[in-house]
Protein backbone atom coordinates (compact mmCIF):
# COMPACT_ATOMS: atom_id res chain seq x y z
CA UNK A 1 0.00 0.00 0.00
CA UNK A 2 1.20 3.47 -0.78
CA UNK A 3 2.20 5.27 2.41
CA UNK A 4 0.60 8.48 1.20
CA UNK A 5 -2.94 7.10 1.64
CA UNK A 6 -2.90 6.76 5.43
CA UNK A 7 -0.73 9.86 5.81
CA UNK A 8 -3.11 12.04 3.77
CA UNK A 9 -6.18 10.62 5.51
CA UNK A 10 -4.56 11.33 8.86
CA UNK A 11 -3.73 14.91 7.86
CA UNK A 12 -7.29 15.50 6.69
CA UNK A 13 -8.78 14.05 9.87
CA UNK A 14 -6.43 16.19 11.95
CA UNK A 15 -7.50 19.34 10.16
CA UNK A 16 -11.17 18.37 10.54
CA UNK A 17 -10.62 18.08 14.26
CA UNK A 18 -8.78 21.40 14.21
CA UNK A 19 -11.76 23.07 12.57
CA UNK A 20 -14.06 21.50 15.15
CA UNK A 21 -11.96 22.70 18.06
CA UNK A 22 -11.84 26.23 16.68
CA UNK A 23 -15.42 26.54 15.46
CA UNK A 24 -17.56 24.66 17.96
CA UNK A 25 -19.21 26.29 20.91
CA UNK A 26 -20.39 23.41 23.05
CA UNK A 27 -17.59 22.05 25.23
CA UNK A 28 -18.54 18.43 24.55
CA UNK A 29 -18.36 19.00 20.81
CA UNK A 30 -14.89 20.45 21.33
CA UNK A 31 -13.94 17.27 23.19
CA UNK A 32 -15.22 15.21 20.26
CA UNK A 33 -13.01 17.22 17.92
CA UNK A 34 -10.03 16.63 20.19
CA UNK A 35 -10.76 12.92 19.91
CA UNK A 36 -10.70 13.26 16.14
CA UNK A 37 -7.28 14.88 16.29
CA UNK A 38 -5.93 12.15 18.58
CA UNK A 39 -7.26 9.49 16.24
CA UNK A 40 -5.52 11.11 13.32
CA UNK A 41 -2.26 10.91 15.24
CA UNK A 42 -2.97 7.24 16.02
CA UNK A 43 -3.49 6.43 12.36
CA UNK A 44 -0.17 8.07 11.55
CA UNK A 45 1.59 6.09 14.25
CA UNK A 46 0.16 2.77 13.11
CA UNK A 47 0.89 3.38 9.43
CA UNK A 48 4.49 4.38 10.05
CA UNK A 49 5.01 1.49 12.43
CA UNK A 50 3.77 -1.00 9.86
CA UNK A 51 6.02 0.60 7.27
CA UNK A 52 9.10 0.70 9.48
CA UNK A 53 8.64 -2.80 10.88
CA UNK A 54 9.36 -4.12 7.38
CA UNK A 55 12.08 -1.77 6.24
CA UNK A 56 14.03 -1.10 9.43
CA UNK A 57 15.84 -3.74 11.41
CA UNK A 58 14.67 -3.17 14.98
CA UNK A 59 11.84 -0.79 15.79
CA UNK A 60 10.54 -2.19 19.10
CA UNK A 61 7.07 -1.75 17.56
CA UNK A 62 7.18 1.69 19.09
CA UNK A 63 4.40 3.05 16.90
CA UNK A 64 1.83 0.55 18.05
CA UNK A 65 2.92 0.79 21.68
CA UNK A 66 2.60 4.57 21.51
CA UNK A 67 -0.81 4.16 19.88
CA UNK A 68 -1.98 2.08 22.81
CA UNK A 69 -0.64 4.70 25.20
CA UNK A 70 -2.38 7.45 23.25
CA UNK A 71 -5.67 5.58 23.36
CA UNK A 72 -5.40 5.10 27.13
CA UNK A 73 -4.44 8.72 27.70
CA UNK A 74 -7.31 9.84 25.48
CA UNK A 75 -9.69 7.78 27.59
CA UNK A 76 -8.33 9.43 30.74
CA UNK A 77 -8.57 12.83 29.07
CA UNK A 78 -12.18 12.36 28.05
CA UNK A 79 -13.10 11.27 31.58
CA UNK A 80 -11.46 14.24 33.24
CA UNK A 81 -12.71 16.61 30.54
CA UNK A 82 -16.30 15.48 30.91
CA UNK A 83 -16.05 15.73 34.70
CA UNK A 84 -14.82 19.32 34.34
CA UNK A 85 -17.54 20.17 31.83
CA UNK A 86 -20.20 18.71 34.11
CA UNK A 87 -18.84 20.64 37.09
CA UNK A 88 -18.87 23.86 35.05
CA UNK A 89 -22.38 23.10 33.85
CA UNK A 90 -23.50 22.50 37.42
CA UNK A 91 -22.02 25.76 38.66
CA UNK A 92 -22.75 28.03 35.72
CA UNK A 93 -25.70 26.35 34.04
CA UNK A 94 -24.02 26.30 30.64
CA UNK A 95 -21.46 24.30 28.72
CA UNK A 96 -21.04 27.07 26.16
CA UNK A 97 -17.38 27.98 25.80
CA UNK A 98 -18.11 31.45 24.44
CA UNK A 99 -19.88 32.36 27.66
CA UNK A 100 -17.07 31.26 29.97
CA UNK A 101 -15.00 34.40 29.68
CA UNK A 102 -13.80 34.94 33.22
CA UNK A 103 -10.14 34.92 32.34
CA UNK A 104 -10.53 36.82 29.07
CA UNK A 105 -8.68 40.07 28.64
CA UNK A 106 -10.93 43.02 28.34
CA UNK A 107 -10.00 46.24 26.65
CA UNK A 108 -11.88 48.66 28.82
CA UNK A 109 -9.61 50.98 30.84
CA UNK A 110 -10.96 50.40 34.37
CA UNK A 111 -12.14 46.83 34.15
CA UNK A 112 -9.49 45.43 36.43
CA UNK A 113 -11.39 45.38 39.68
CA UNK A 114 -14.26 43.05 38.78
CA UNK A 115 -12.60 40.04 37.30
CA UNK A 116 -15.28 37.55 38.21
CA UNK A 117 -17.94 39.15 36.06
CA UNK A 118 -18.74 38.33 32.51
CA UNK A 119 -18.31 40.88 29.79
CA UNK A 120 -21.95 41.91 29.69
CA UNK A 121 -22.16 42.19 33.43
CA UNK A 122 -19.05 44.34 33.57
CA UNK A 123 -20.55 46.53 30.87
CA UNK A 124 -23.67 46.95 32.97
CA UNK A 125 -21.55 47.66 36.03
CA UNK A 126 -19.68 50.34 34.13
CA UNK A 127 -22.93 51.90 33.10
CA UNK A 128 -24.08 51.81 36.70
CA UNK A 129 -20.85 53.43 37.83
CA UNK A 130 -21.14 56.04 35.11
CA UNK A 131 -24.67 56.95 36.09
CA UNK A 132 -23.96 56.98 39.83
Amino acid at each position, binding site marked *: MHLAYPAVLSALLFCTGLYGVL*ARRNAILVLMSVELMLNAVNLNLVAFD*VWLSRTAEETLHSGQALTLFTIAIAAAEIGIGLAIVLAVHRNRGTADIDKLRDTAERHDPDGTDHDALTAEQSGEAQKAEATA
Partner: protein
Amino acid sequence: MTAFTTAAETHGFLSPTGVEIAFLLVGLVTFGAALVTVTTRQLVHAALWLVVTLGGLAVEYLLLTAEFIAWVQVLIYVGSVVVLLLFGLMLTRAPIGRSPDADSGNRWAALTVAVAAAAALVWVVVDAFRTTWIDLDGPAAGSTEATGASLFQNWVLPFEALSVLLLAALVGAIVLSRKAKADASTPSGADTRPDTEGTR
Protein backbone atom coordinates in the same frame (compact mmCIF):
# COMPACT_ATOMS: atom_id res chain seq x y z
CA MET B 1 17.64 2.18 0.35
CA THR B 2 17.59 -0.57 -2.19
CA ALA B 3 14.27 -1.75 -0.79
CA PHE B 4 12.75 1.65 -1.46
CA THR B 5 13.92 1.82 -5.05
CA THR B 6 12.83 -1.69 -5.87
CA ALA B 7 9.48 -1.01 -4.25
CA ALA B 8 9.15 2.11 -6.35
CA GLU B 9 9.93 0.15 -9.46
CA THR B 10 7.45 -2.63 -8.85
CA HIS B 11 4.55 -0.39 -7.82
CA GLY B 12 2.72 2.21 -9.80
CA PHE B 13 0.46 5.14 -9.05
CA LEU B 14 -2.12 4.19 -11.59
CA SER B 15 -2.47 0.54 -10.64
CA PRO B 16 -3.84 0.53 -7.10
CA THR B 17 -4.15 -2.79 -5.38
CA GLY B 18 -7.33 -4.06 -3.81
CA VAL B 19 -6.18 -3.07 -0.34
CA GLU B 20 -5.54 0.44 -1.54
CA ILE B 21 -8.99 0.73 -3.07
CA ALA B 22 -10.60 -0.58 0.11
CA PHE B 23 -8.51 1.84 2.17
CA LEU B 24 -9.53 4.71 -0.08
CA LEU B 25 -13.25 3.91 0.12
CA VAL B 26 -13.26 3.42 3.89
CA GLY B 27 -11.15 6.55 4.20
CA LEU B 28 -13.69 8.57 2.24
CA VAL B 29 -16.48 7.32 4.51
CA THR B 30 -14.36 8.11 7.59
CA PHE B 31 -13.49 11.60 6.40
CA GLY B 32 -17.08 12.36 5.43
CA ALA B 33 -18.34 11.19 8.81
CA ALA B 34 -15.70 13.36 10.50
CA LEU B 35 -16.85 16.36 8.46
CA VAL B 36 -20.46 15.74 9.47
CA THR B 37 -19.34 15.38 13.09
CA VAL B 38 -17.80 18.82 13.19
CA THR B 39 -20.47 20.57 11.14
CA THR B 40 -23.83 19.14 12.17
CA ARG B 41 -26.08 21.26 14.33
CA GLN B 42 -27.65 18.32 16.15
CA LEU B 43 -25.44 17.46 19.07
CA VAL B 44 -26.49 13.85 19.48
CA HIS B 45 -26.04 13.25 15.77
CA ALA B 46 -22.48 14.54 16.10
CA ALA B 47 -21.75 11.85 18.67
CA LEU B 48 -23.33 9.18 16.49
CA TRP B 49 -21.36 10.25 13.43
CA LEU B 50 -18.27 10.10 15.60
CA VAL B 51 -19.03 6.39 16.00
CA VAL B 52 -18.89 6.02 12.20
CA THR B 53 -15.58 7.88 12.11
CA LEU B 54 -13.99 5.78 14.85
CA GLY B 55 -15.33 2.53 13.41
CA GLY B 56 -13.95 3.48 9.99
CA LEU B 57 -10.58 4.10 11.60
CA ALA B 58 -10.75 0.64 13.16
CA VAL B 59 -11.31 -0.82 9.69
CA GLU B 60 -8.30 1.17 8.45
CA TYR B 61 -6.19 -0.36 11.21
CA LEU B 62 -7.35 -3.80 10.12
CA LEU B 63 -6.36 -3.01 6.54
CA LEU B 64 -2.96 -1.95 7.82
CA THR B 65 -2.68 -5.38 9.53
CA ALA B 66 -2.75 -3.85 13.01
CA GLU B 67 -5.38 -6.16 14.44
CA PHE B 68 -4.84 -5.54 18.12
CA ILE B 69 -5.02 -1.76 17.75
CA ALA B 70 -8.22 -2.16 15.76
CA TRP B 71 -9.96 -4.16 18.47
CA VAL B 72 -8.69 -1.82 21.18
CA GLN B 73 -10.06 1.05 19.11
CA VAL B 74 -13.46 -0.63 18.88
CA LEU B 75 -13.53 -1.48 22.57
CA ILE B 76 -12.32 1.81 24.04
CA TYR B 77 -13.42 4.46 21.57
CA VAL B 78 -16.63 3.08 20.14
CA GLY B 79 -17.52 1.25 23.33
CA SER B 80 -16.72 3.67 26.08
CA VAL B 81 -15.66 7.11 24.88
CA VAL B 82 -18.73 7.68 22.74
CA VAL B 83 -20.96 6.42 25.53
CA LEU B 84 -19.23 8.87 27.89
CA LEU B 85 -19.78 11.68 25.39
CA LEU B 86 -23.47 10.76 25.06
CA PHE B 87 -23.79 10.76 28.83
CA GLY B 88 -22.12 14.15 28.93
CA LEU B 89 -24.52 15.50 26.32
CA MET B 90 -27.41 14.12 28.32
CA LEU B 91 -26.24 15.50 31.65
CA THR B 92 -25.59 18.96 30.25
CA ARG B 93 -29.14 18.98 28.91
CA ALA B 94 -28.20 19.23 25.28
CA PRO B 95 -31.15 20.03 23.05
CA ILE B 96 -32.44 17.11 21.03
CA GLY B 97 -33.25 18.95 17.82
CA ARG B 98 -31.22 21.52 15.95
CA SER B 99 -29.39 23.97 18.13
CA PRO B 100 -28.72 27.17 16.22
CA ASP B 101 -25.70 28.14 18.31
CA ALA B 102 -23.63 25.00 17.86
CA ASP B 103 -21.02 26.92 15.89
CA SER B 104 -19.38 30.01 17.25
CA GLY B 105 -19.01 33.26 15.37
CA ASN B 106 -15.44 32.66 14.28
CA ARG B 107 -16.22 29.67 12.09
CA TRP B 108 -14.91 31.33 8.96
CA ALA B 109 -11.59 32.07 10.61
CA ALA B 110 -11.54 28.47 11.83
CA LEU B 111 -12.34 27.24 8.33
CA THR B 112 -9.51 29.32 6.90
CA VAL B 113 -7.03 27.98 9.43
CA ALA B 114 -8.16 24.39 8.93
CA VAL B 115 -8.06 24.54 5.14
CA ALA B 116 -4.64 26.19 5.17
CA ALA B 117 -3.31 23.57 7.58
CA ALA B 118 -4.82 20.77 5.50
CA ALA B 119 -3.32 22.10 2.29
CA ALA B 120 0.11 22.51 3.85
CA LEU B 121 0.08 19.11 5.54
CA VAL B 122 -1.21 17.20 2.52
CA TRP B 123 1.29 18.88 0.22
CA VAL B 124 4.21 18.16 2.53
CA VAL B 125 3.15 14.57 3.21
CA VAL B 126 2.53 13.70 -0.43
CA ASP B 127 5.77 15.30 -1.47
CA ALA B 128 7.73 13.51 1.24
CA PHE B 129 6.32 9.98 0.83
CA ARG B 130 5.74 9.94 -2.90
CA THR B 131 7.90 6.89 -3.49
CA THR B 132 7.25 4.95 -0.30
CA TRP B 133 5.22 1.80 -0.16
CA ILE B 134 4.13 -0.27 2.82
CA ASP B 135 4.77 -3.96 2.41
CA LEU B 136 1.65 -5.63 3.74
CA ASP B 137 2.57 -9.18 2.78
CA GLY B 138 3.86 -11.80 5.16
CA PRO B 139 2.89 -12.10 8.81
CA ALA B 140 0.83 -9.29 10.27
CA ALA B 141 2.92 -6.49 11.72
CA GLY B 142 0.42 -5.71 14.43
CA SER B 143 -0.91 -9.07 15.51
CA THR B 144 -1.70 -9.56 19.16
CA GLU B 145 1.36 -11.73 19.60
CA ALA B 146 3.79 -9.18 18.14
CA THR B 147 2.18 -6.26 19.97
CA GLY B 148 2.10 -8.10 23.28
CA ALA B 149 5.67 -9.27 22.97
CA SER B 150 7.00 -5.80 22.23
CA LEU B 151 4.78 -4.21 24.87
CA PHE B 152 5.91 -6.50 27.65
CA GLN B 153 9.54 -6.74 26.57
CA ASN B 154 10.39 -3.15 25.77
CA TRP B 155 7.56 -0.99 27.10
CA VAL B 156 6.88 -2.42 30.55
CA LEU B 157 7.75 0.67 32.57
CA PRO B 158 5.63 3.08 30.51
CA PHE B 159 2.84 0.51 30.61
CA GLU B 160 2.88 0.40 34.40
CA ALA B 161 3.16 4.18 34.62
CA LEU B 162 0.10 4.35 32.40
CA SER B 163 -1.88 2.30 34.90
CA VAL B 164 -0.96 4.83 37.60
CA LEU B 165 -2.10 7.60 35.28
CA LEU B 166 -5.42 5.88 34.70
CA LEU B 167 -5.87 5.48 38.43
CA ALA B 168 -5.11 9.17 38.94
CA ALA B 169 -7.61 10.10 36.23
CA LEU B 170 -10.23 7.87 37.84
CA VAL B 171 -9.73 9.43 41.25
CA GLY B 172 -9.68 12.89 39.71
CA ALA B 173 -12.95 12.35 37.87
CA ILE B 174 -14.59 11.02 41.03
CA VAL B 175 -13.35 13.97 43.06
CA LEU B 176 -14.47 16.49 40.45
CA SER B 177 -17.91 14.96 40.31
CA ARG B 178 -18.29 14.47 44.06
CA LYS B 179 -17.30 17.92 45.22
CA ALA B 180 -19.99 19.76 43.35
CA LYS B 181 -22.58 17.27 44.50
CA ALA B 182 -21.55 17.68 48.15
CA ASP B 183 -21.77 21.46 47.80
CA ALA B 184 -25.18 21.22 46.22
CA SER B 185 -26.55 18.91 48.89
CA THR B 186 -25.07 20.74 51.87
CA PRO B 187 -27.93 23.22 52.48
CA SER B 188 -30.59 20.51 52.50
CA GLY B 189 -28.70 17.59 53.96
CA ALA B 190 -26.62 19.28 56.66
CA ASP B 191 -29.47 19.87 59.11
CA THR B 192 -31.14 16.50 58.68
CA ARG B 193 -28.23 14.08 58.94
CA PRO B 194 -25.27 15.70 60.63
CA ASP B 195 -24.06 12.52 62.33
CA THR B 196 -23.69 10.46 59.18
CA GLU B 197 -21.71 13.27 57.63
CA GLY B 198 -19.36 13.25 60.60
CA THR B 199 -18.82 9.54 60.67
CA ARG B 200 -18.18 9.32 56.95
